[in-house]
């Protein structure tokens, strides 16, 4: 599969994603500089990695969504291409309105880094077919602004449409509404999540519950020829 990992100034999980994908699938993901205006041809999956894009001195992701490359990321998503935003990447996706809602400062007003349990709400998607529905997996979080928020009526709609991808199941670390840890867009081809699957893709560094995600994506791409 062809993966483009977007590098914003201040991204710091970009190389981790490349490493995880290589470890899980053997494929070489490509780093794409934020100043580019076009994704590499043949891109199947775009990953917006974790970090502090442009320092996040404004609002997390607020600057990044205006980066030149983002227009093409949106076009890619509109064509049905896969986009995965992890942590800061999730924040970029909500800022750019590719996903609904916002990520607010954690309930306890502190950065939290630790493995958490999340449940897989759906396994009929490109990103999650490698898991069982309802399966509880352990993946680390590392964020200060990860409390998912959405107005109540929109939240009901989100739930009704089955757009919740993951929920915190072993205690809610940040106060996210409905324990939401990750959501899909309506088409199911864009996923934003606060936990870092790339950090638990290799048992040598703590765990590998994130690994099936990369395999799910690869299988999906091979099957659909997307």
């Amino acid at each position, binding site marked *: 599969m062809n993966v483009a990992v977007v590098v914003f*100034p*201040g991204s*710091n*999980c970009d*190389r*981790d994603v490349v*490493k*995880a994908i290589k470890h899980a699938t053997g494929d070489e993901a490509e780093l794409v500089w934020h100043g580019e205006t076009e994704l590499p041809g043949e891109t199947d999956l775009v990953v917006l990695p*974790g*970090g*502090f894009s*442009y*320092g*996040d*001195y404004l609002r997390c992701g607020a600057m990044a969504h205006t980066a030149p490359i983002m227009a093409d990321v949106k076009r890619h998503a509109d064509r049905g291409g896969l986009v995965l935003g992890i942590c800061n990447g999730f924040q970029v996706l909500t800022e750019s309105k590719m996903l609904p809602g916002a990520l607010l400062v954690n309930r306890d007003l*502190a*950065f*939290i*880094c*630790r493995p958490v349990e999340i449940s897989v709400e759906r396994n009929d998607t490109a990103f999650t077919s490698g898991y069982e529905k309802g399966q509880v997996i352990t993946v*680390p979080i*590392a964020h*200060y602004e990860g409390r998912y928020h959405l107005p109540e009526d929109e939240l009901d709609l989100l739930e009704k449409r089955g757009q919740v991808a993951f929920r915190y199941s072993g205690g809610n670390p940040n106060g996210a509404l409905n324990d939401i840890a990750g959501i899909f867009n309506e088409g199911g081809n864009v996923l934003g999540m606060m936990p*870092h699957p*790339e*950090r638990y*893709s*290799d048992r*040598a*560094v*703590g765990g590998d519950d994130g690994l099936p995600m990369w395999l799910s994506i690869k299988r999906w791409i091979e099957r659909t020829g997307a």
Partner: protein
Amino acid sequence: MDYSKAGLRKEEYDALKARLGREPNDLELQIMGVMWSEHCSYKSTKPLLRLFPKDGDRVLLGPGENAGVVDAGDGLGLAFKVESHNHPSAVAPYQGAATGVGGIIRDIMALGARPVASMDGLFFGDPEERKTQALADGVVKGVGGYGNCVGVPTVGGKTVYHESYRGNPLVNAFCAGLVPTDRMVSSQTASSGQKVLILGSKTGRDGIAGAAFASVELAEDGSGVPSIQIGDPFAEKLLIEACLELRDKDLLVSMQDMGAAGILSSSSEIAAKSGIAMTIDFDAVPLRAEGMEPWEIALSESQERMLLIVEPEKVDQVMAVAGKWELDCAVIGETEKGDHYRILWKGDTVADMPASVIGSDCPEIPWPSKRPKNLEDRWNFDLDSLPLPENWNEEILNLLGSHSHRSRKEIFEQYDSMVQTNTVIGPGSPVSAVRIEGSDRIAVMSMEAQPFMCWLDPYNGSAEVVARSCRALAVAGAKPAGTTDCLNFPSPEKPEQFWTLEQSAKGMAEACSSLNCPVVSGNVSLYNETANGPILPTPLVGTVGFVENPEELLSSGNWRERDRLFYVGMPNPRLDGGSYLQNKTGRIWGKPLDFDGELENEFILRAIETAKRRAASSGMPIAGGGLAVALAKEAGTSGLGASISIPFPTRRDVLIFGEGGPRAVYSVPKNRLVLFRALWKGYAVTEIGQVGGNRLTLDDLVDLSVSEIRESWNL
């Protein structure tokens, strides 16, 4: 201007005049005041630092560069160093701690290394006081705020509470980075005819004269506080990537970070170390503020700046890399033949001195030294005066829940300990371990400090600090390759305090020599005291070693059902100076155990073999709180209990809570028993029980559930 206003002593002023053959002008005087401050010149400690062993099997670069480097195998070097940022953190906890992290990261970058791991040593006052809580919260948020954003994992550290740190907290930042040995960058390789560039943030009025500030006692009224540096981790992240790109494109001759005393120290040090002359034009420095005077430009400690020495024909390529990372970059001077260091401003030469004088020639100060009169009083603990515990369960739970031993997760969970996805053992264990990308090898690190032991017995207490650090590495399977130290002490001008510093350095030097653990880098922080008194003597070390592959790394907290438990080490620990005695009596007293190099080395060799041959499933060095805390932590982390029975040759409380000397607890699976016993044959080793169930019991004294332990320990 009066020389004393510039911070110089009469002798230093005279020496300066003699070296120049004339009166220095005001700017030169200000420059020398900072460059000959304790922080920049080590004038009080140079003779002590010479005691440390500097060479070892794996040492590639010892002291003298921005950080030491040890051989990490496969053509890679591991650069590491620890540095203090104490006074700035006292005044501005968040920014002080943040810029401390930023500064040590730049020290590592200056060698051309990619920073891969950080640790922090934090020393705060009484944790029950609101003032301490607010300060500690600011410091922790500062360490995290910077390290998290810049993308360097904080993988471990040490936190100590004692009232002596009340007005003068210590914030020691450690960083390690990896560099291909053939691409290592040096601060000593400049030659004449090259360009001097400044890369990174603009120079502002922040942090002016911070080095001088670090070299005096803190005043209660806050006077003498310089403007504080403001950290911008985003800029540092860009600076890291830009410097690595410059390194990989072979565009650098020499590099130095701008820490204390900014442009002045970085440029004059390169000139002095490389044996060349330099002219810097202050009109070319990108400034953040208008109307800055030459001395302000010279001494500004604005963060996130690096000084580069570049061949003239490569300047354009350097500018292009800087442009890509959106960093300011300017040619501010050139290197020349000779020994002069010249500053131009508005077309005039405003300072012109020998570079060697600025960079290295500070006269040393032989402070008078006097053994404290009351040292024996501190040792007068009489074991017979201490009753045995009535309720052992309570004692253990109290100790676990005390501020000495409580889990530090409330601190370390605020740090990103996993970014870069190489963290094999993160915070909360006796050692931290980071995978070296591209190889099977793992770098193992430990940070250690024992201010209580050092106060009671600076020589042996300080040797114990080094030994504890080496033991922790050895239990994990790593042979110490080198160490970095931060000597946090009060004013050397008081004879009893200087004696303590001297003894401490001697004790560390002996331990480092006999354990074959050279000191490859370090930092001295003196004048840590306020009107309320001095801090405890607090030498801190960060020791690094390697294991060849993950199977040879022995972690703690890994008990398995039916494992047999072994106590390794002489049954002669002492309550003296330990946390149990302190917790129980509210006093720090007693005479810590003397350092025994032979016993330590025997332990280290066997411990490394135990890990390497996988003779145990879990290993925990016995440190603070003694065997009781080691067992409780093993049980709590493993989620398993054990039934233990110990023959007591000494008082039971001494063996259970005593500290000092090489000691560890191992859990050994049945099929490794023969091997384990063989490895420890000839050393003091006792089988003490078996892992299993969910209760930790010890003879008829202790009976605790694992959940009680976890709860008390705050796991």
